[in-house]
């Protein structure tokens, strides 16, 4: 397919004073009617104006001051340019003969952006709105609402999540990860809960499960679910360490952290997605920021659960330092996370938590073991 020509090139006429230019193939638009008008072009260097004559029109010509003429940016095509005059936002001169341009000194000068104050105000408002939302409003509302979620709803939510976790750890197509059912071991856990002063045998009672998996971890879910991995029990050197972790997770349940976390997760991610718009690769930044925010929320929750655990252990006559001992073991296995990385993981740095747990133990008090050796042995065998 042949292309029609670009805006055609003109040639400079040999005017004696060199101020008359070729207006053929150029066109003037007055900014009212969409009809091109043929022009004659003359530069009056003395007055510093471009005189645009309109020979076919009843209207008189126009005079554009040379230093107020601007050229349109980012125009496709090599030939011809489009000019505008800062004094008339609508009129355009489509110019074929570019020789005139050398008389115009400020073709590319930009106008300062208009309404900078307004822009700054809205920019500030946008930043403030996002900060208030993520930092104050969403957490506050989530914390308040978490106490209104009916226990049955929370419980069902926990149950569904627990099922999903068991399935995810087992892998697709396989039966979900088994729950350990050694009766004596579970009885030992029950004793532990009683010693820690946890409410038992009511509808709202906390339910503890052990999953047969080598991961060294434990977590709490909405509705009073506390879940241990077998690896955690294997890694512990004494029942007190398990009791300490249990007390920590019970602390999460008492503070309703899992439910609050589930509620909070709804807001920020949507807001951040909005900020980044369709900017290429925004998803990665989004993920990192979300991590940072949820980690900041969670660090507060972890410290709260630790405080709860110290008190419960102290009441049970078990040294709060047991929590520190357990963390020490974790650190030996996985290493600590310090610096930048620690903001991206949900637990505060282990070192500081170990120190705080040891500080919580009273040096002059004699602590006991939470389980007998026999019970401890059956807890260790709960998955066999």
């Amino acid at each position, binding site marked *: 397919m042949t*292309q029609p020509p670009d805006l055609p090139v003109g040639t400079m006429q040999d005017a004696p004073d060199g101020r008359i230019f070729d207006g053929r193939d150029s066109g003037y638009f007055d900014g009212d009617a969409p009809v*091109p008008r043929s022009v004659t072009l003359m530069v009056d260097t003395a007055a510093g104006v471009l005189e645009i004559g309109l020979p076919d029109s009843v209207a008189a010509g126009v005079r554009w001051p040379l230093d107020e003429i601007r050229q349109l940016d*980012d125009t496709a095509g090599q030939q011809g340019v489009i000019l505008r005059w800062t004094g008339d936002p609508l009129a355009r001169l489509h110019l074929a003969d570019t020789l005139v341009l050398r008389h115009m000194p400020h073709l590319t000068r930009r106008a300062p952006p208009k309404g900078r104050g307004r822009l700054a105000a809205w920019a500030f408002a946008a930043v403030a*709105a996002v900060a208030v939302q993520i930092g104050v409003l969403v957490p506050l509302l989530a914390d308040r609402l978490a106490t209104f979620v009916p226990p049955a709803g929370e419980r069902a939510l926990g149950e569904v999540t627990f099922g999903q976790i068991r399935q995810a750890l087992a892998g697709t197509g396989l039966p979900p990860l088994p729950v350990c059912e050694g009766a004596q071991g579970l009885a030992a856990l029950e004793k532990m809960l009683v010693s820690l002063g946890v409410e038992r045998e009511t509808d709202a009672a906390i339910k503890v499960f052990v999953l047969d998996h080598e991961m060294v971890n434990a977590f709490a879910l909405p509705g009073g679910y506390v879940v241990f991995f077998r690896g955690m029990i294997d890694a512990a050197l004494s029942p007190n360490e398990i009791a300490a972790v249990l007390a920590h997770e019970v602390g999460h349940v008492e503070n309703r952290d899992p439910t609050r976390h589930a*509620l909070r997760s709804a807001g920020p991610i949507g*807001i951040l997605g909005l900020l980044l718009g369709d900017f290429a*690769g925004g998803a990665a930044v989004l993920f990192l920021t979300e991590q940072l925010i949820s980690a900041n929320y969670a660090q507060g929750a972890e410290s709260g659960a630790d405080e709860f655990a110290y008190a419960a252990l102290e009441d049970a006559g078990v040294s709060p330092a047991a929590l520190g001992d357990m963390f020490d073991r974790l650190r030996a296995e996985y290493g600590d996370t310090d610096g930048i990385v620690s903001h991206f993981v949900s637990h505060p740095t282990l070192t500081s938590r170990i120190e705080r747990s040891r500080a919580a133990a009273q040096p002059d008090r004699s602590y006991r073991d939470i389980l007998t050796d026999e019970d401890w042995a059956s807890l260790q065998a709960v998955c066999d």
Partner: protein
Amino acid sequence: MDVWFVGNRSALFWLALKSGFWTVLTLGFYRFWMKTRLRRWYWSAIRPGGHPLEYVGDPWEKLLGFFIAVVILTFYIGIVNLLLMFASFSLFQSSVLGYSASVVGVIPIWFYAQYRARRYVLARTRWRGVRFGLEKGAWGYAWRALTHWLVTICSLGLLWPRMTFYLEKYKTDRTLFGSGRLKQGGRWVMLYRAAIPFAVAMMFAGGLVVWLIWIDPLLPDGDAEFDEILNGIGLAADVGIIPFTWERPLRLFLFIPAMIAMVYGAVHYRFVSKRILADHKHAQGVQMRSRLNGLRISVIYVLGTTIAYTILLFGILGVLGVAAALLGFDAMIEAQIGTADPLGDLPQWLSIAIIAALYLSVFLFWSVLHHVFVTFPLMRHMAITLSLNNVAGLSQISQRARDEFAEAEGFAEALDLGAAI
């Protein structure tokens, strides 16, 4: 009056590359300038009667509009999502419902934003010094779009052309060029012509399904339950055992041409319906004519995308090659299998920055290549196949007032609608 298209790919390539580079460098803030500059370029390339369109949108107003949209939408998204989540936990004990409700809740705003974005772009487009415009009516558009979608879904897609027609008519009848008003003529049934290739492809695929399941079953012991088949497929994938005997399984490959035909049908419908609609648009006696070719559009799509992907792939291989040359091939392999860490000496933030830069450059190059090999030829084909008849009516048109538009296309920007230029 013919529409010309000037400009070449290399100019566009450098413009897109330069502005994309700045966008990456400014963490996305330059995107308002990038969009403005690319639009200016494309608009000025399209020249009805030899006179270019002009895009007069301003990046600063886009930035302002974005801030305004953020202020309004953060509250909507944050608070509404939280409440939905709470309701979903309390009443239905699952988060799925809350998430879907919040997605559904955004849909009306999405249509609203689409219309507002169109209004903004038209208000900032001029031809021969005269402004285009779109009347207010974004909420009207949003509820009409919702209703049409509902009807379309309920009719299993049979009434899709009706939706295409009436939504386009709503927008066209509110479009103005100066004092002249555009009118969408024709009837919705005329769009069925554009849907023929898609309908044929659907029938082919449907026939294939019927053939493989009922007429000449792929699994001869046809009493197998659907669940069992699914489990069987899962098992085959996991363990590598096929628990049942296939009857001529090569017939499954027939689904490949069926899929290709469906994709072609969809592209054909999208663009040929535009052609038919354009042929029925007129203003002040000026009549639009389009000679757009559906097959050619599809070829541009397929070829353009393939070329862009290939170049991107070679680019990535090139970067890997340079890395291999710099670090030595052995080091690369060792890094892959984890016995050595060639970047281990660098501080962590630097290696993160390098990876982030590489990641963003892939997106940047993809968008640049897409502009050059897909958007450019598509725009060119659509422009040069368009013409205006009876242009005498143009002389009766005069200028219209400026449409001040504080929020620009902020909502569309924030809701990720800006995928088109």
